[in-house]
């Protein structure tokens, strides 16, 4: 099926808000990960907090509000790695969709 023709015939308008919403849903799940017995989301807050910790270990609450004692360096590396990979993919797809009309 030629979906471009289909869209033109229907006079459908590209909905950027829905596209942004879809991307958020798609990539949010990819940011979730498991490390050192805890469940984490590789987000800016957690990575920034880990960056600010000087000690080798720290206890932080995971996604389910369970306190987990973690090795800071190891968790920071894992979350930073996940964050960079996922956000790069997210950005690339966003750029692609942004050009649609």
């Amino acid at each position, binding site marked *: *099926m*030629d*979906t471009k023709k*289909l*869209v033109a015939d*229907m*006079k*459908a*308008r*590209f*909905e950027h*808000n*829905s*596209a*942004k*919403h*879809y991307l958020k*849903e*798609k990539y*949010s*799940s*990819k940011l*979730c*990960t*498991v490390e050192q017995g805890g*469940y984490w*989301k590789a987000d800016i807050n957690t990575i920034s907090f880990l960056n600010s910790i000087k000690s080798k270990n720290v206890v932080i609450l995971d*996604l*389910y*509000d*369970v306190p987990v004692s973690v090795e800071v360096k190891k968790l920071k590396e894992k979350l930073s790695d996940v964050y960079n990979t996922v956000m790069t993919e997210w950005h690339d*797809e966003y750029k692609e*969709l942004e050009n*649609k009309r």
Partner: protein
Amino acid sequence: MTRGVLLFGFNSPKVNYYEMAEYTAKRINHFLDLPVTIVTDSFSVPKKPTYKFDNIVISKPDKDNQFRNDIWINKGRYQAYEYSLYDETLLLDVDYMVNSDRLLKVFDFCKDYACHQNIAQLMIPKGEQEYVSRLSFPVLWATVLGFRKTEKTEQLFACMKMIQKNYNHYANLYNFSPDVYRNDFALTIAHRLVNGHYFDQTNILPWNLMHIWLKTNLFVEKKTKFNTKYTVIYDHNKNGKVKKEYTTIQDMDFHVINKDVFLELM
């Protein structure tokens, strides 16, 4: 440690659920590399199947449920614990479109069992969550249910059995309509019961279940065996006028509410 996917697929007079299960199983093999067991009845199994399941469990269907003027054979889902041959099981609805390996992550987040509470609706960014009743709590979705064979999981399925058998009582208790049996409601109530009427968040997956709701159509550019790219067209009703809106999606798993839309994609 064995892992696999369990599908329930009983044909109704209008819908060939076995065929849908075959289509979904092929995608599960391709994207998740997991074996698939189907629970069905002997009438649903075709003479010349197009797919060989890892295992076929023949079960007696409970046809005592109706939805939109059709028999909806969704009862008996509590038997998943008994029927699954795997240590770690993904119990999936046959109308769930697998387009990536995202479901493998369910196993990482599954201590005893894990399911979705929050949903997202494609093309409806501000879509509302569903509640058991107006003054009650959010629905847990039985569409994707990961579980391990533990005591707590066994209790969960035992509770689902009890709720199915006494559905009118629980409908009365939780103030919802008993007319159509829903596994989502049975799961929601069972989850509360096994946790002593406390809502245990640790069984909830920390991302949303994506629904393709009604009034939303999906089209594929090229009908290949494992297509993952779709154009989504939505009828947006605004001020009494319907405006067509569209977007494109790729490599995204979703649950299709409208069976006709799913069948068109097959």
